[in-house]
């Protein structure tokens, strides 16, 4: 199998699995227990918290572990809105956010919160000036992702956070696709809340984290025990958390060299695709992007049909995002970038990773060219 869907998920790396294993059986304790086995779990939990915090230049008590990136997004949006008790009732976000943010915003709207969804330009970037112009005295939170999951386009986070800070508004960023691919320092970027996830960086599924800057007002959305300093009730998943910390450390360690390697592979791949396949376009080509992501549109063919041809040859890629698979609507990200519904429907995402080789990509270009030629032959719109 040639796996080119690392933005959907990644395999757990051997070192990560090794770091997790002790916590299933011999060190199975509850981190809230008084007894020795509980203290062992507690120590592991706090060590992991410190490791994750160090990767983003935060302090350990600013990290709240959650059950997923989606939960962290929910906690940031709902938690901040709740903390203001409806005194401030306006949230600013973008049209290209992950559904974890967009659907949560829809739900907040039903609870009487006003939501502004900013457009993006044809490169897929949010304009900080538009953020500035959208703010009102009632704005409680700005939530703009660090890097888009479909295009890899990096958003101007530092500029947006400066605007937020100057107006005393909290700034949240979903950094699930940026973390481990580009440096994300909460101080350099001026971030108040940031969503992270383990399974995009060779860690386990079912564990995420929310960075919450000290002093930021945020109410819990899960109530129960006093875990995570009252910000997220529920017994901590120590095995997953230990795996997350190990994955974050490894990602941090290899970030610089991997970024150079992947960007070179990705850029050569895109060049080859555009040369060999007529009417191919690279989405977000002129914007800064995370190094592993390539979003390609091919006129007159359906993305899922291309995927099936690739799949039959053992190549795993994805249309827009894995979450959108099975939904008939074309990608909201491509539509926001100005693609027609048909061009949006013809988009494929290739996301490279640690094991991706030049040979994998050479083979993929060939299969891709054949698939598109075949589909265009039967296409009613070619």
């Amino acid at each position, binding site marked *: 199998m040639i796996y080119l869907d690392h933005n959907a998920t990644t395999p757990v790396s051997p070192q990560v699995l090794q770091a997790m294993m002790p916590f299933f059986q011999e060190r199975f304790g509850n981190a809230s227990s008084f007894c020795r086995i509980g203290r062992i779990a507690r120590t592991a939990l706090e060590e992991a918290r410190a490791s994750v915090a160090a990767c983003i230049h935060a302090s350990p008590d600013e990290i709240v572990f959650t059950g997923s990136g989606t939960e962290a997004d929910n906690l940031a949006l709902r938690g901040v809105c709740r903390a203001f008790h409806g005194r401030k009732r306006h949230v600013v976000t973008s049209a290209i956010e992950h559904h974890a943010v967009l659907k949560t915003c829809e739900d907040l709207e039903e609870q009487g919160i006003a939501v502004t969804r900013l457009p993006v330009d044809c490169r897929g970037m949010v304009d900080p000036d538009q953020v500035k112009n959208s703010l009102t005295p009632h704005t409680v939170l700005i939530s703009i992702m660090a890097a888009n999951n479909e295009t890899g386009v990096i958003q101007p986070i530092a500029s947006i956070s400066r605007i937020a800070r100057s107006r005393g508004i909290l700034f949240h960023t979903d950094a699930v696709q940026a973390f481990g691919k580009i440096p994300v320092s909460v101080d350099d970027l001026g971030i108040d809340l940031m969503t992270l996830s383990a399974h995009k960086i060779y860690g386990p599924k079912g564990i995420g984290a929310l960075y919450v800057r000290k002093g930021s007002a945020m109410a819990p959305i899960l109530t129960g025990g006093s875990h995570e300093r009252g910000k997220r009730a529920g017994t901590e998943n120590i095995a997953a958390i230990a795996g997350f910390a190990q994955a974050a450390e490894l990602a941090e360690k290899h970030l610089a060299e991997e970024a150079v390697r992947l960007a070179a592979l990705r850029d050569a791949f895109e060049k080859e695709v555009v040369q060999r396949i007529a009417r191919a376009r690279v989405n977000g080509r002129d914007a800064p992007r995370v190094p592993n992501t390539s979003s390609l549109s091919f006129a007159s063919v359906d993305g899922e049909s291309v995927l099936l*041809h690739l799949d*039959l040859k053992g190549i795993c890629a994805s249309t827009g995002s894995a979450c959108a698979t099975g939904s008939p609507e074309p990608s909201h990200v491509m539509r926001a970038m100005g693609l027609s519904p048909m061009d949006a429907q013809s988009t494929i995402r290739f996301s490279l990773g640690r094991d991706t080789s030049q040979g994998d990509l050479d083979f993929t270009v060939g299969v891709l060219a054949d698939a598109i030629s075949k589909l265009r032959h039967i296409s*009613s719109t*070619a």
Partner: protein
Amino acid sequence: MAKERGDRDDTGMSSAENEKAQPIQGPVLFYNDTVIDHFTNPRNVGEMEPGEANGYALVGDPACGDQMKLWIRVDSGRITDIRFKSFGCPGAIATSSMATCMARGKTLEEAAELTDDDVVRALGGIPEDKKHCSLLGIMALQKAIDDYLLGRMCAEEGDDLS
């Protein structure tokens, strides 16, 4: 006792299966081999010149952007040739292909009775969230038959007027 399999016809199913398609049990999650066969080797792909075809339809599903063009040739009330082109997901392509296989050789009355359920059953089922794709082939077929009938009616009226 092992089930005897008849010769496979153009639809990729044995003739015995074709006559007595069983209802699908349980939810279908993925494309099966018959769907993939019709997707990778779609039958009756192509276009027909206005002189060859006497019925044509262009249909689209605005919900997902799928589109299908269908041409039919009707001689003595029977579909003697049928061609299609489709833009869409594997489900749309496979159901388009299967619909043309099932319509070929049928009388207009028989073809008009085909439903999208017939097409889905003939394919051995398609995933639940792809059911709307299966409408395309049958919709195009019915519209092409209407187009043929309308064309003949106009021709007859033209004859009456002359």
